């Protein structure tokens, strides 16, 4: 019976507001002694019934007892020489909490209202895919751009010193196959990602020539990649 009743309270502040409303107490003149003993009765119950919020109730119980003690002592004075009511802080907390509790009741009405509203769920339409147009994709891409990107890649590879002289077996044919293999798993590839792992200058040059060859054969398209000094390769079916 008590448990059901207790679950109606969101927390210690809520319970205190309940006492205040029930007993028509002036919130600025809370009879701390009376309210504390009643509060403690609830806390004793809550300790066994609902562990989740018990800690917060116990904390409030100790706050109440602390206020009770301070009320028995001579009043403290603030900097303006006015007596400090030991209950003042609790009162302002109660009022602040009350504001939001009221607001949550307004929101509950909004919620109920909005729950009567349903939105369109599933529906059908035929999306028109916009095919990429080469003119658009290659606009502002010139051989100069290609060369510039390429030069940048070469320069970025400079710092690796090569001490050994060895013959590097590489042909345009090989690199066309290499690019084709890479394009099998991706519909689009960044140029930099293709050449990223290539360390030898000669292989880079051959790869670049292979790439130009593929564009010439109409097997590869190129478009510029925005905000980045790179370009994108894509297969032409």
């Amino acid at each position, binding site marked *: 019976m008590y448990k059901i009743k207790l679950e109606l309270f969101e927390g210690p502040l809520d319970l205190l507001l309940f006492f205040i409303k029930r007993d028509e107490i002036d919130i600025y003149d809370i009879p701390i002694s009376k309210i504390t003993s009643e509060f403690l009765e609830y806390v004793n119950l809550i300790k066994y019934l609902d562990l989740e919020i018990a800690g917060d109730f116990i904390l409030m119980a100790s706050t109440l007892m602390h206020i009770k003690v301070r009320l028995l002592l001579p009043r403290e004075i603030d900097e303006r020489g006015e007596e400090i009511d030991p209950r003042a802080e609790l009162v302002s907390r109660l009022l602040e*909490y009350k504001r939001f509790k009221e*607001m*949550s009741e*307004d*929101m509950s009405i909004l919620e109920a209202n909005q729950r009567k509203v349903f939105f*369109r769920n599933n529906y059908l339409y035929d999306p028109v895919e916009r095919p990429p147009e080469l003119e658009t994709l290659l606009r502002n891409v010139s051989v100069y751009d290609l060369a510039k990107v390429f030069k940048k890649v070469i320069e970025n590879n400079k710092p690796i010193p090569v001490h050994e002289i060895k013959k590097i077996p590489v042909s345009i044919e090989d690199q066309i196959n290499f690019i084709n293999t890479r394009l099998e798993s991706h519909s689009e590839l960044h140029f930099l990602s293709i050449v990223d792992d290539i360390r030898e200058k000669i292989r880079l040059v051959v790869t670049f020539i292979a790439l130009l060859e593929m564009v010439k054969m109409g097997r590869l398209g190129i478009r510029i990649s925005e905000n980045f000094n790179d370009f994108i390769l894509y297969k032409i079916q």
Partner: protein
Amino acid sequence: MDTVYHSIIEALIFSSDEPIPSKMLIDAIKGLDGSDIAITTEDIEESVDSLNKRYDSESRSFSIVRLAGGYVFATKPEYAKYLGYLATEKSKRRLSAAALETLAIIAYKQPITKPEIESIRGVNSDSIIATLLEKTLVTITGRAEKIGRPLLYGTTDEFLKYFGLNKLSDLPKPREIEEILNDEDFIEQKRKLLMSEIEENIEKDIESGAGESQNQ
């Protein structure tokens, strides 16, 4: 603006799964028909008004509403009982009082930290905040510039949609503390006022025995 755009605007709003802002509608039209087309936010507004008038006169069961900063099609409240009948159990669940209370604090005080929320509520709010995050009604918006740099919380567009609001300032304002003190009866009055303003339809529903499905 050419009235042909009424239908295009209608189709665009209809197709969008989320409330669609005016700007996106304008972008789509200009993107396809040319950026020189003169179409403004006011044109969109007029267009939506004129569409809604047509729906009313044709007694459509839905209309276009302004929500979370955009336009979206929504059913009229009087059909709620039929639609609620088919809705899933999960969607029928309402927010708990604790969740509403916490949302009210976050909505009004955002950005706000967890300790601040807890000091207003007077109770530990870990699990409530976790629930609200999971429901995407609130989100983490940054960190406070204070000791411990606690996370800050704020509300989302989903929050606006859930409460049927177009923007945050449409929320009811909490009363000032002075006002609460001066007028204890005011709460009741305000509730009645709010009820009669926005709940007319709902009351009708309740009278006719509907709107009970939420308690199932």
